[in-house]
């Protein structure tokens, strides 16, 4: 049992665990599946690119290096920087833009990558070490190209030794704006929350972020939670509206005055906040120690309200763009915890459908499938589950159907004892991680993959590039 738990020094994600077809067609496969799956020819992840040679509209070079991160109390921690700072530069693009980012590794020995969290990029640009690329060794570089499709709030971060590299600074914000500037749009504010050491920061600085806008004007505050635990946002006075979640606008958002909103690890929430016409200022709390202050004054902090915005019933319903009632595949993603060996180490480890990593399901689909997934958690702790390359529609929680706005997610927190049904269209071929974004949990084995039946990867986990995406 101990020997069986050992993970080989190099292995393909394609040979990981067992194939789960979710009740759809496909051969019950040899472990190295791919060949002989339907009529579609075999495709490598490296071929799943943006596909054009078009000149980029937004071109950014990000140079990663080791560096000390200075904290407010004068202490410094060893970390990583992008273009000399952390978080890295905020990237802005408009819908339709071709974004081209060149990542350069100066001296980070473990290797690095960049993943575009929440952006449904082509698989070759997903930036997962050992799945869609090799980690970049010092001196190496890589170009990521994708077309900005969905306006919204996103972030980027390393997906090599992610539990350590994200915490220590390899991250930044990326915002996709609508194709054309909208007249009268609220003032745009990014609030990227990150914990460096024990320092809670917004956009890299401790303390409050001050945004001075005229009385009566409004701000769109884009909250990005880059940490491993949930972040809670609430207003000191007045009301806000939840404009968007995970890069997707909500339909018919209403005013919220007496509740906080949960931003799961990895998740984003955009809030609309008006500065009162009487000229007073408002404080948006982000967790305990800091916030965004709108207006010139410095309102006193207040305690969090006991109520919480429930996105299952918030906003107005709208028809779904696909029929989720008759899915082509149904998958279970049931999280538990039990005693066992993970790569030879004894402990109480996370399980997926009762199995310990790497003996986990490979959720296998074909392009065009409507997929329903049941996410259930009986593990004793909460898990913010992140699916790469797709956005899923929340159908129900604990059997109660969604009655509010269509609620699209890429980062959905499943609390202990909860069960969600989500659905998505398999419209982005590739091999995609589907994992917990409490990154130490991912490192403890809470990782599975969604694989399109005809896609294969030449990259190896472990191996010469020491690929270790978690």
């Amino acid at each position, binding site marked *: 049992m101990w020997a069986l738990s050992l993970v080989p020094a190099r292995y393909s994600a394609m040979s990981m665990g067992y194939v789960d077809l979710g009740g759809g067609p496909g051969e019950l496969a040899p472990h190295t599946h791919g060949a002989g799956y339907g009529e579609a020819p075999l495709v490598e992840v490296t071929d799943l690119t943006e596909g054009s040679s078009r000149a980029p509209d937004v071109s950014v070079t990000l140079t990663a290096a080791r560096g000390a991160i200075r904290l407010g109390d004068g202490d410094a921690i060893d970390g990583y920087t992008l273009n000399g700072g952390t978080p890295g530069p905020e990237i802005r693009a408009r819908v339709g833009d071709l974004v081209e980012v060149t990542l350069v590794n100066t001296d980070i020995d473990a290797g690095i990558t960049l993943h575009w969290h929440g952006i449904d990029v082509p698989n070759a640009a997903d930036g997962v070490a050992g799945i869609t690329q090799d980690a970049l060794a010092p001196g190496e570089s890589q170009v990521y190209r994708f077309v900005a499709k969905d306006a919204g709030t996103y972030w980027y971060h390393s997906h090599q030794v992610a539990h350590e590299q994200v915490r220590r600074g390899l991250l930044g914000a990326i915002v996709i704006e609508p194709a054309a500037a909208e007249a009268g749009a609220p003032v745009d504010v990014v609030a990227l929350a990150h*914990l460096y050491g024990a320092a809670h920061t917004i956009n890299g600085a401790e303390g409050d972020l001050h945004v001075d806008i005229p009385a009566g004007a409004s701000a769109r505050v884009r909250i990005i939670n880059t*940490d491993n*635990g*949930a972040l*809670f946002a609430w207003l000191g006075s007045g009301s806000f509206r939840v404009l968007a979640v995970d890069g997707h606008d909500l339909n018919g958002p209403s005013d919220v005055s007496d509740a906080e909103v949960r931003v799961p690890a990895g998740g984003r929430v955009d809030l609309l906040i008006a500065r009162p016409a009487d000229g007073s200022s408002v404080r948006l709390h982000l967790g305990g*120690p800091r916030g965004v202050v709108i207006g010139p004054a410095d309102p006193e902090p207040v305690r969090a309200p006991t109520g919480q915005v429930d996105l299952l019933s918030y906003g107005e319903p709208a028809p779904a763009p696909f029929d989720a009632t008759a899915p082509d595949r149904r998958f279970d993603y049931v999280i538990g915890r039990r005693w066992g060996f993970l790569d030879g180490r*004894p*402990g109480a480890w996370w399980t997926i459908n009762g199995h310990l990593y790497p003996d986990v399901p490979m959720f296998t689909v074909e392009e065009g499938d409507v997929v329903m997934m049941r996410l259930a958690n009986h593990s*004793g*702790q909460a898990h913010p589950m992140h699916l790469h390359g797709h956005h899923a529609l929340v159908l129900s929680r604990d059997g109660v159907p969604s009655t509010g706005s269509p609620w699209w997610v890429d980062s959905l927190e499943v609390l202990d004892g909860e069960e969600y049904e989500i659905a998505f269209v398999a419209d982005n071929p590739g091999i995609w991680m589907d994992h917990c974004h409490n990154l130490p949990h991912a490192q403890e084995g809470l990782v599975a993959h969604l694989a399109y039946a005809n896609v294969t990867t030449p990259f190896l986990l472990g191996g010469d590039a020491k690929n270790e995406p978690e």
Partner: protein
Amino acid sequence: MRTTYKVLAYTICVLVGVQAASHAWASAGLGSWVEGGGVLDSTAFESDESLFPEMAGFGIHAMNGMMIIPFVSLILLVIALISRTRKAMQWAGLVLLLVGVQIFLGFASFGVAALAILHGLNALALFTCALTAGRIGMRVDAPAVAAAAPAVEGS
């Protein structure tokens, strides 16, 4: 063998003491860190960061409780089985059972906090059992003490 059994049983007593001490140390460290302006919220709680030095106490508690104590308890039972001393086996078995209950309660209290109360009380029961095992576990010919054992000796 009798000495080994005794030493292991008393070792468990000491390790249970380490459990109480490490958790108290970490809790006190958390208190003074918060007093000094530290903020513990979900993002800090779930981070891998060492927020304050005494936080190591939580790590010691987890490692000692999930690895070392179960391991020593298992060895205690093995020694008892080899010795074929009925009372030694009974007490070692009870120690291992309480260790299992203790770990279960520790994890279950993440979901139901009230179970942590039982976790604390069960620690005392475990300490007492290990102490008793060390004192009388292998004494087969001491009727005064044997009467204190839960089961009656066959002779």
